[in-house]
């Protein structure tokens, strides 16, 4: 009995509280990245390997616009738009010629794109990481916990973007086009929906979401050319665990995995905490290989 209470006393309650909030905040950004990825996969059958690079380039553009104008919200919008355009161009140049071929070709092609974008960033921006000033510097106190407002804003913004996107898919005309294209491409085409442009639009949308999450995340750690791979890997894990093509699954899985990693990093270094998410992936593959929330297709 005494041993048990000793164990509970050893658990740092305040640390756990902080890490819970941190985990949810990171989880929301991850959810935003992963929902773009799962959207592109669910609708186009394309695994976008370059998603992490779009995230990274978005963050870079955010830093540039922010240092030029000092306006964070402008940076967010500009980065989203520019990367959406880049995504559209990328889809037209590399993925459109591959429509109808084995989907594995698309993972190879987007891998090539990620190679180009990453090395472009290294060559153009240099190897040193860029810092981005935090747009909102205030703190608030919650019980005895002191927490920066900006992290809360990130979580709320991510939730707002994902929520807005969900409503867009569900109710708007173009959202209905997108869902129609997912269900039956040929039929959608026959009903007069410009399917190739819907696919391009979806890719641009996913790219824009990746860029937005990059800008939101940039003030927390700084921006460098190699940050893309970490994020795309995490997003892949989230998407596999949550079930490919399931938006809700991605959000839940993103928060779940980020929370676990946040707790794990109380006891081990953050680079080792990544292993926790790998273990979640392995367990998911063992017991539910289609993902926890997969929608039957």
């Amino acid at each position, binding site marked *: 009995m005494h041993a048990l209470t000793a164990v509970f006393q050893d658990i740092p309650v305040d640390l756990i509280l902080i890490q819970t909030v941190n985990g949810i905040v990171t989880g929301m950004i991850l959810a935003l990245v992963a929902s773009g990825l799962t959207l592109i996969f669910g609708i186009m059958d394309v695994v976008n390997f370059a998603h992490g690079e779009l995230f990274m380039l978005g963050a870079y553009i955010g830093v540039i616009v922010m240092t030029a104008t000092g306006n964070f919200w402008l940076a967010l919008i500009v980065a989203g738009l520019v990367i959406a355009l880049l995504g559209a161009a990328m889809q037209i140049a590399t993925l459109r010629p591959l429509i109808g071929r084995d989907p594995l070709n698309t993972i190879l092609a987007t891998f090539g794109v990620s190679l180009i974008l990453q090395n472009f960033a290294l060559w153009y921006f240099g190897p040193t990481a860029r810092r981005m000033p935090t747009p909102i510097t205030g703190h608030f106190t919650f019980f005895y916990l002191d927490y920066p407002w900006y992290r809360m804003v990130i979580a709320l913004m991510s939730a707002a973007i994902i929520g807005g996107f969900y409503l867009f898919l569900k109710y708007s005309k173009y959202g209905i086009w997108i869902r129609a294209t997912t269900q039956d491409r040929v039929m959608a085409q026959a009903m007069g929906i410009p399917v190739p442009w819907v696919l391009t639009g979806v890719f641009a949308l996913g790219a824009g979401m990746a860029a937005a999450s990059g800008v939101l995340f940039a003030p927390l750690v700084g921006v460098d050319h190699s940050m893309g791979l970490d994020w795309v890997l995490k997003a892949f894990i989230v998407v596999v665990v949550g079930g490919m093509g399931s938006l809700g699954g991605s959000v839940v899985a993103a928060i779940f995995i980020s929370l676990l990693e946040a707790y794990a990093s109380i006891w081990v270094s953050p*680079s080792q905490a990544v292993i926790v998410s790998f273990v979640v992936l392995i367990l998911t593959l063992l017991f539910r290989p289609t993902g926890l929330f997969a929608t039957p297709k």
Partner: protein
Amino acid sequence: MTTTPLDNPLSVKKAGLSHTAVYWIGFCVVMAVLIVAPLVLPVFWAKFLTEILIWGLLAMSSDILIGYTGMVSFGHSAFFGLGMYGAAGALLLFPPNLWLAILFGLAGAGAAALFVAYFSTRLRDIYFAITTLIFSQIFYVIIFTWTKVTGGENGLIFTRPHLTFAWLFDQRFDRVTMHWFVLAIVAGSYLTLRRIMHSPFGMVLQSIRENEARTRAIGYPVQRYKIIAVMLSGLFAGLAGVLYAVQNEFAAPDFVYFITSGDTVIFNVMGGIGTLVGPIVGAGFFQLLRELMSRIFGDQFPYLIPLGVIFIVMIIFLPQGLMGWARRWLNK
């Protein structure tokens, strides 16, 4: 990945020679050139050629999955790296012996391959590709952070073992014998893999590529075949890792990182998947372009940008790779 079988005879019926004869003549000519090369080439290019052969072996091992079974692996760096670290372990812990290093390297890569195969073969297509990538990253994190055993960021450094054959023969490696040793192993692996891919086992793998559901319906235990394919592939990738470690006298975590896996896939696509020789050609093509670009434009030149463009153009317009293109051209 659907490909048309590339084992079509080179159309040389006009010359009156059988396909087999032409194949073996071609094989002997290439071998002769590769045997003589280190004696003729300047030191830099000779070493360059040896490395191309090692990368080629790595890419060839991955071709078993990409080209023959239709599974794209983005995790071959794990097997390559485990081969490297296995060899390093054997050379550091025991009196240095080449064959023990190879044995340990293969054991390491085989164990990693069993682990990866058991989980990732539950998934297909894109999911398989992603899970192999994630698994290779697990090995990277472990090797990178377990500093006590693996040397962490600095890796392991050791001295090259002697070339020995039982009690008969014991000689220090020099540049030329190293090349010949690598060449012998790569050529041996190529012939072994070619034999395996033409065996009933290889045919089942190709039938999985063409139509997995049907192969299962005929009664083949598809998952077991896939596990064996991944393990076979992992073992040969590990062998490449051992060779690389022995040649360069170190094992470093960089080689377990995703970039090695990515390069492996690029070699395959550039050279031509499903040909076994193609990946070696692809490795040569890639490394040569890279070397030329850094000589023309300087070391800082981001050579992966033009190579990435070439890679994408080849996926779209030349899905059969250089070898496929060469075959079609020869068949004209």
